[in-house]
């Protein structure tokens, strides 16, 4: 059996600070198969962005202490020399970011920004690289790509900018696309378009996609598997369908309660009370326990590990909830509308 496209194994990322190490990621394991989409969901500060910046080795300026393994096709990228890592970024992994305006260089034409990516990794001429760049812009649905390529980022709309980022991330046909909250800065209609483009390219190119978001609703339609992160750890993980239909961690319940649903009898959204714990000095036991309505004394004694509950669905919760998963969630599980 070939190894998964991306496998994160017991990853910890600690940043040094005056008050002690900040445990941004603390014992995280995830995996993604080729051609699939992994949705990673969590609040700000849950460690989702840090995880994937670590996978790209883009954290080095903040001098973090990183342990564990991040395997791309079985090769640990954390141990690669810098020169080989540079050949991973671009040709093997493409990445797009939250705010496309600040992620694009304001003084360079977008076409040049894409073309230089090609020229950094392949031996092609200026003209050829430009032509490829225009073709890539057309592929992500930018009309008049020829003309748009000559424009600067500030002359494009938010959706167009994110399309440029996608074109840039995929121009070298990588195996993996990491999309870090790619629609957070965009309108809802544009969000749907961008997610559509990413999903379309995934099918067409057969790449793996990591879709990071702070909203379960964003990943619901496109993810094959979902990981829910809280305070640097995965608290629930499984096939998208199973996680939405039978969410088993109280934090996931809480996240689902913050999503508005049409036709629900309750119109009031329920926020999760409290705020995420300090990552410098996290509470003993389950990180979510202080905010959890269902906690009991066992919760604050040990840190629960992810436990497989069948069908690839795992959660990190010690609650012996009778009828776990039978709880009514307010977001329709994807794919069930058609069945109903």
């Amino acid at each position, binding site marked *: 059996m070939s190894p998964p496209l991306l496998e994160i194994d017991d990853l910890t990322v600690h940043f040094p600070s005056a008050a002690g190490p900040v445990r941004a990621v603390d014992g995280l394991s995830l995996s993604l198969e080729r051609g699939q989409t992994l949705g990673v969901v969590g609040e700000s500060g849950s460690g989702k962005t840090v995880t994937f910046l670590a996978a790209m080795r883009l954290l080095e*300026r903040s001098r973090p202490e990183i342990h564990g393994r991040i395997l791309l096709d079985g090769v640990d990228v954390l141990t690669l020399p810098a020169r080989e890592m540079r050949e991973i970024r*671009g040709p093997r992994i493409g990445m797009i*970011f939250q705010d496309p305006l*600040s*992620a694009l*260089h*304001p003084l360079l034409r977008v076409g040049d920004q894409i073309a230089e990516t090609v020229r*950094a990794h392949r031996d092609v001429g200026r003209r050829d690289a430009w032509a490829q760049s225009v073709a890539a812009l057309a592929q992500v649905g930018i009309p008049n790509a020829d003309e748009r390529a000559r424009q*600067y980022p500030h002359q494009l709309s938010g959706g167009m900018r994110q399309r440029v980022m996608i074109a840039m*991330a995929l121009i070298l046909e990588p195996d993996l696309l990491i999309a870090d909250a790619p629609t957070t800065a965009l309108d809802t209609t544009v969000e749907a378009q961008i997610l559509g483009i990413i999903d379309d390219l995934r099918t067409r190119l057969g790449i793996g996609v990591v879709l990071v978001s702070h909203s379960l609703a964003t990943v619901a339609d496109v993810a094959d598997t979902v990981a829910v992160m809280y305070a640097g750890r995965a608290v629930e993980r499984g096939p998208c369908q199973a996680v939405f239909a039978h969410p088993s961690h109280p934090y996931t319940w809480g996240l689902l309660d913050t999503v508005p649903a049409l036709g629900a009898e309750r119109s009031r959204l329920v926020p999760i009370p409290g705020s995420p714990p300090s990552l410098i000095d996290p509470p003993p036991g389950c990180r979510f326990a202080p905010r959890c309505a269902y906690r009991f004394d066992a919760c604050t004694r040990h840190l629960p590990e992810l436990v497989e509950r069948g069908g690839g669905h795992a959660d990190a919760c010690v609650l012996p909830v009778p009828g776990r998963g039978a709880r009514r969630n307010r977001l329709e599980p994807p794919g069930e509308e058609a069945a109903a």
Partner: protein
Amino acid sequence: MGRYILRRLMWTVVVVIIVTLITFVIFYVLPSGDPALRFAGKEPTAQVLAQVRTDLGLNHSVAVEYLLYLKRLFLGDRYGWPGLGFSYSSGAAIAPQLWQRAQITIQLVLGAAVLWMLIGIPVGVYSALRPRSRFDRASLFVGLVFISTPVFWLGLLMLWLFSSTLGWLQGTGYVAFTTDPVQWAAHMLMPWITLSLAFAAIYARIVRSNMLDTLGEDYIRTARAKGLPERRIVTRHALRASLVPIVTLLAVDIATLVGGTVIVETVFNLQGLGSWVLYGALNQDLPVTLAVTLVATVAVCLLSLVADILYAYMDPRVRPE
């Protein structure tokens, strides 16, 4: 764009009028005595004094004198256009001497500017790439020394070391490039270095902090994420963005120095604008003072216009659509 430049040039005229007015008023209001007395010989009779006043053009009220000055300035006088008059003390026409002195000062200032950019930018970039490194700390320390060293002292020190003691470079004075390029460089080198060191230190710190800010930008992370070589990230992505604000600063600094290189010109005996304006001020030679003030003002206006045009060229966000 043409309209914009035209409007800016018209503003330059307005600024020239205001600045010369202020210079005029300062000259007449300051209790430095009657300039005519200086040139009328010992114990002049009232008749001689009146004659001198008429010769120097001091026989009207301040307002009338100023209007006459503006009229000659814009319409020309017997020495040609622009009418800058003659020096009270030497009686010679201002204009030819002004151009000659301006050439020397411009060579001094531009040469020094090239030098301080050549030192300041690489030092700043290298410090930013390795913040808090030994090089960064050393460049900060050396920079502080240069910034706090008085220019006249630095100039005298250089003369003592390189000219008197080691004999590597020529001492003071000016040799035209067209006369002897080698001698020209040998005479200009020390003034250039003396003038540029403090600026090099300041520019190194500014480039360093701009670079550090830029290196933290999201688009630098993007450049890394697409696997660009570090060298290209530094030069094409980070340095480019860091140098945009430097352009404005450079223009203003060069413009300021056009009328303000008094000390270096004096130490190295260069007959430029700076030493001339000092002479004009000390000798109540109003036309000299006015002429240098005028050149400095025009330099500031024109160079800031050039800076704004360059800025628009470098940053597409401020270009008119």
